[in-house]
């Protein structure tokens, strides 16, 4: 008995009960759609965050002056300028370095005001962050040394304070101190922490220390550009060692600072998204399993209805496997049709949602693979018992069944 004929018999029997077959298939369609959509969106979100991390710049190391668990607590802690100098001396993996401090203040221009992050940075900061300008020019090391009152404003700040008009050369006020706007920064968007990076004003570090913070020669963070991606982890370790030495920490003492590289951020967010995606996948899988239970239910009904036919086939010489294969194949066909339709719907839904959220459209090939295989597997798994039951019927009883 060849496969083509069994297939034909199975298709005919499905065509005979159109509504029933459709409803049964629907369970699988929903399950597969859910899995593909969830996996595509999950992967899409992950890719989107990855893009954002790459926007932070590449090959950088950030040192913050407080360990992670103390960061929410009040009270400032600072790095010293001398420490930064020692690091620059001691690490050959560093190509650029900048100290940085930040404080939340209100900036005003004419009638407009905006509460924003005022960051004091050194001239190399923008090179490390690979942060382009849309208008104007950067400040120089000389401007920093002279503590010039100049400001580079982010896109959000520009829009809030200046609207459509040109801000270059205008004077804004921070803590009532006038700053001349010398540049508008290019758009960076939201960082992985959820902050709008464009809602910032950058001024020379020395200006910041004197005019805004009132703390000289100390700062909250350091950012470094590594010479190569391969040595970045090693360099981060070196920096950590120097910091411990400089801060006179004994072995066993906890770090009083935090160091992380771009890789650390990527890995941390990747891990988060992987867990989230797995969770979503698990939830979507439940839909598919429910669909599978529906298949089993309908196949049991089908076996019951066709007991007579099964008996006849047995009388004509059908072996156990002939009957088993026939019913198993029917279940698999329902599932495969459901799988294919679900795949199309799932891809469509993913594309639609991505368009709505203006994410890059991403269709998870893995999800398609998993869905199609799992739909066949679901067919086999949930179709086997009814098919087995059919094949084990006693021919006499089956024939006598009304």
């Amino acid at each position, binding site marked *: *008995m*060849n496969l*083509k*004929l069994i297939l034909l*018999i199975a298709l*005919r*029997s499905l065509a*005979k009960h159109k509504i029933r077959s459709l409803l049964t298939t629907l369970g699988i369609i929903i399950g597969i759609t859910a899995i593909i959509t969830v996996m595509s969106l999950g992967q899409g979100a992950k890719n989107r965050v990855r893009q954002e991390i790459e926007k932070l710049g590449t090959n950088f190391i950030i040192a913050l002056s407080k360990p992670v668990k103390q960061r929410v607590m009040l009270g400032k802690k600072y790095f010293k300028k001398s420490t930064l100098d020692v690091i620059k001396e001691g690490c050959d993996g560093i190509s650029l370095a900048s100290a940085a401090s930040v404080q939340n203040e209100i900036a005003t221009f004419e009638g407009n005001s905006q509460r924003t992050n005022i960051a004091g940075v050194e001239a190399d900061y923008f090179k490390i962050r690979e942060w382009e300008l849309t208008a104007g020019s950067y400040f120089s090391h000389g401007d920093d040394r002279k503590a010039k009152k100049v400001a580079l404003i982010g896109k959000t700040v520009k829009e809030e304070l200046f609207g459509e008009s040109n801000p270059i050369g205008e004077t804004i006020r921070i803590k009532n101190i006038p700053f001349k706007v010398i540049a508008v920064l290019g758009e960076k968007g939201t960082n992985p922490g959820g902050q709008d990076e464009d809602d910032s004003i950058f001024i020379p570090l020395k200006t910041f220390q004197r005019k805004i913070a009132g703390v000289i020669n100390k700062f909250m963070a350091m950012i470094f550009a590594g010479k190569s991606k391969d040595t970045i982890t090693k360099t981060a370790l070196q920096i950590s060692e120097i910091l411990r030495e400089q801060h006179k920490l004994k072995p066993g003492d906890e770090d009083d600072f935090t160091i992380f590289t771009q890789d650390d951020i990527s890995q941390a967010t990747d891990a988060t998204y992987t867990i989230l995606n797995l969770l979503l996948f698990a939830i979507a899988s439940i839909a598919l399993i429910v669909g599978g239970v529906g298949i089993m239910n309908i196949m049991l009904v089908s076996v019951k209805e066709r007991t*007579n*036919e099964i008996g*006849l*086939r*047995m*009388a*004509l*010489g*059908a*072996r*156990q*496997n*002939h009957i088993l294969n026939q019913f198993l194949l029917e279940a698999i066909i329902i599932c495969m049709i459901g799988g294919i339709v679900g795949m199309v719907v799932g891809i469509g839904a993913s594309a639609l949602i991505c368009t709505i959220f203006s994410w890059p459209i991403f269709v998870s090939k893995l999800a398609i693979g998993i869905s199609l295989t799992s739909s066949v597997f679901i067919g086999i798994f949930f179709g086997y018992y009814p098919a087995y039951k059919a094949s084990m019927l*006693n*021919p*006499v009883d089956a*024939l006598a069944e009304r």
Partner: protein
Amino acid sequence: MKTIEAKNLVKIFQMGETSVTALDDVSVEIDSGEFIAITGQSGSGKSTLMNLIGCLDTPTDGHYFIDGKDVAKLDRDELAKIRNEKIGFVFQKFHLLPDLTALDNVALPALYAGEKEAKAREMAKKVLEIVELSDRTHHYPYQLSGGQQQRVAIARSLINNPSILLADEPTGNLDTKTGESIINLFKNLNEKKNVTIIMVTHEPEIAQHANRIITLMDGKVIRDGKI
């Protein structure tokens, strides 16, 4: 040559607490080329005997040989093979599959025997010629009359060249005239093709067409004689 040899067949059905003896020590020998009618009232055990002869069921006790082979102890698949190769079934209600054409219905046992589809159809065409339905090969059962449906069923029973044709009340659902034509077809097959025919019927006038009548009552053979 003996086609069928049943020795001391016993079939007991367990119905909850009570057991019902449907066949009680039945021994029958049937030669190749015989045309036999098994008669008896309902509950006499004739259907049970037919199911055992047809390898649709296994006896509680006793031995049963088809062409010298003891089939009483075979497993499901081995019995399926015997049914497929050695026995052709004709049922009272024709039992054609409604979704298949006459040709495909007839071809089914050949497919189960492992023939390729084209070959099976070729074989089906030949047996449909024997039952004079060459012009109805692509009709579905609902497009055929009762008599025609039964002829299709007979063609189906013949496709694998069985040694035995087992007919269970083959005329039960047909009018007298059509019933007669079916019986004539059996006679023809029996005489010209030397097919052994075993026919279960409760109608004495149908049974009269056979060469030998076996009568059962209460699970025992009460009469076995040539006409």
